[in-house]
């Protein structure tokens, strides 16, 4: 065999190996969609990739079993709100920590770093009583406030700070010479130049809010207030056993739009996670 042939063979073997490894990563999605269209009997019959009978009713029953549209909307608006708030608050604080000297900056940094490391499970019990004393149980407030000011928000602050630190200082000086206030420099120079960091924070924050589970589980009790992950885990019959075809249909509805966005923007999304991981 020539060198070239050896290389092609080598490449092919690698690719086949990778394809085999990829099966457990891809197959659950495929099977989820397929099972979402099946009837209960077909689901546990002989396995078929294409449903013998396409049971579209599953996708209608999803909405009648629970207020699924409402729950879908809850997740969407909460995730958007959390993202916007996180962006504003973290970029303001991140800018101050990167560029301004003020009393208490060192202490604040220290506290924020410690917050970054403490899992939310540690503070969730006092937070529950705090939220309850505010009368906000079974509202969406805790799902907005806790992530914005919790570890996720702190991580966003650090990400922004790191990015602001790397911006050339002379640009901000130029802004000051052009007559901008501190706030103006932040809004019209620092922020427009930080698009990659903003995108990363937005993507990660949105996804983590969208997928948030512990807080909804603890704080929400009425079906209309549920968010998607909680709603998904709630497709059970009266004995607490899963209604498999409905649950999988609902899961399909929840997961597929995110997957489509992911496939379109995969480069940007993966880079965002890499950025946050490298800094974190």
């Amino acid at each position, binding site marked *: 065999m020539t060198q070239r042939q050896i290389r092609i063979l080598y490449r092919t073997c690698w*690719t086949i190996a*990778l394809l085999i490894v*990829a099966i457990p*990563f891809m197959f*659950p*999605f495929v*099977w*989820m969609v397929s099972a979402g269209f099946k009837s209960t009997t077909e*689901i546990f*019959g*002989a*396995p078929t990739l294409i449903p013998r009978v396409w049971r579209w009713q599953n996708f209608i029953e999803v909405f009648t079993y629970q207020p699924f549209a409402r729950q879908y909307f809850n997740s969407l608006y909460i995730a958007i709100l959390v993202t916007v708030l996180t962006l*504003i*608050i973290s970029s*303001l*604080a991140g*800018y*101050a920590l990167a560029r*301004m*000297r*003020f009393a208490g900056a060192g202490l604040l940094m220290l*506290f924020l770093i410690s917050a970054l490391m*403490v*899992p939310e*499970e*540690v*503070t*969730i*019990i*006092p*937070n529950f*009583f*705090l939220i309850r004393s505010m009368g906000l149980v079974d509202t969406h407030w805790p799902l907005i406030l806790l992530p*914005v*000011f*919790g570890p996720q928000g*702190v991580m966003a*602050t650090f990400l922004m700070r790191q990015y602001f630190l790397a911006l050339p200082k002379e640009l901000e000086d130029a802004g000051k010479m052009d007559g901008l206030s*501190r706030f103006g420099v932040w809004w019209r120079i620092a922020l427009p130049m930080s698009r990659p960091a903003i995108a990363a924070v937005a993507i990660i924050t949105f996804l983590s809010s*969208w*997928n948030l*589970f512990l807080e909804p589980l603890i704080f929400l009790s009425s079906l209309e207030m549920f968010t*998607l*992950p909680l709603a*998904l*885990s709630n497709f059970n019959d009266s004995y607490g056993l*899963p209604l498999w075809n409905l649950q*999988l249909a609902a*899961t399909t509805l*929840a*997961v597929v739009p*995110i*997957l489509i966005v*992911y496939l379109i923007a*995969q*480069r940007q999304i*993966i880079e965002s996670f*890499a950025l946050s*991981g*490298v800094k974190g």
Partner: protein
Amino acid sequence: MEAWLFVSPSAIGFLIFFLGPLCAVVYFSMTEWNLLTQQAAFVGLANFKNALLENPDFWHVVRNSVIFALGLVPLNMALALTLALALSRPFFGVVFFRTVFFAPVVTSAIAWAIVWKFLLQGEGGFINQMLAIVGISGPNWLREPNWAMAAVIVTRVIKMVGLNMILYIAALQAIPRDYEAAARLEGASRWQIFRMIIWPLLAPTTLIIMVITTIGSFKVFDHIYQMTGGGPENGTLVLAFYIYQQGFKFFNIGYASALAMIMFVIVMMLTIVQVMLRRKGAE
């Protein structure tokens, strides 16, 4: 002063929703507070004594958490590094593979657990149906403690390995190609290049990934909640789930707070180890 206008939203929220609760949990952990007492009564370190010395559940949970971490971290890291090595250089299909391996990361843990729970059903589950074709009678995965633990670990690794893979790819791509070229000119084999050049240069990344993944393994909750609910026979009852169970299902606020403190200490220790190792590496 102006600076505080910038940081105050963040700082105030942080005080209310993090620092305050963190102090509160220290106090809670030293109280007797449950459905019977209805309110907190100071009992000193009794909850810690209970957890560490009296309650057999606690050590069972710690054992489960350690097994989970010991299973998940090496598997995750080895797979992440292997995939990263395969995918750090451009070739036909590299984007496809990266996209596929990362896809579970953006998916909700609940959704992921729902689908896997479905695939791992004892009777009529897809995995067992496939095994039956090759003549293996698969176990009832999620109903037997050891198999359930294995299933939870493996599905969690598949869910999260993409993240570490990306971090490893970024680290690999930051290594100048000249090193490898120089080593190759000196006659090093592929394995030698990896063992003697790539691996040492990846050490800082490996350290960070190891600590992040370990901490993450102690925090895992939603995955377990959905797949096994801590069962069967508490076989997958890990620390984060135990805190939730004690605090919000059984309303043992004092005891659950003590558990939260223990988790806090574990995570802190892991972080300190990381910082120390990093310093040592920097010297």
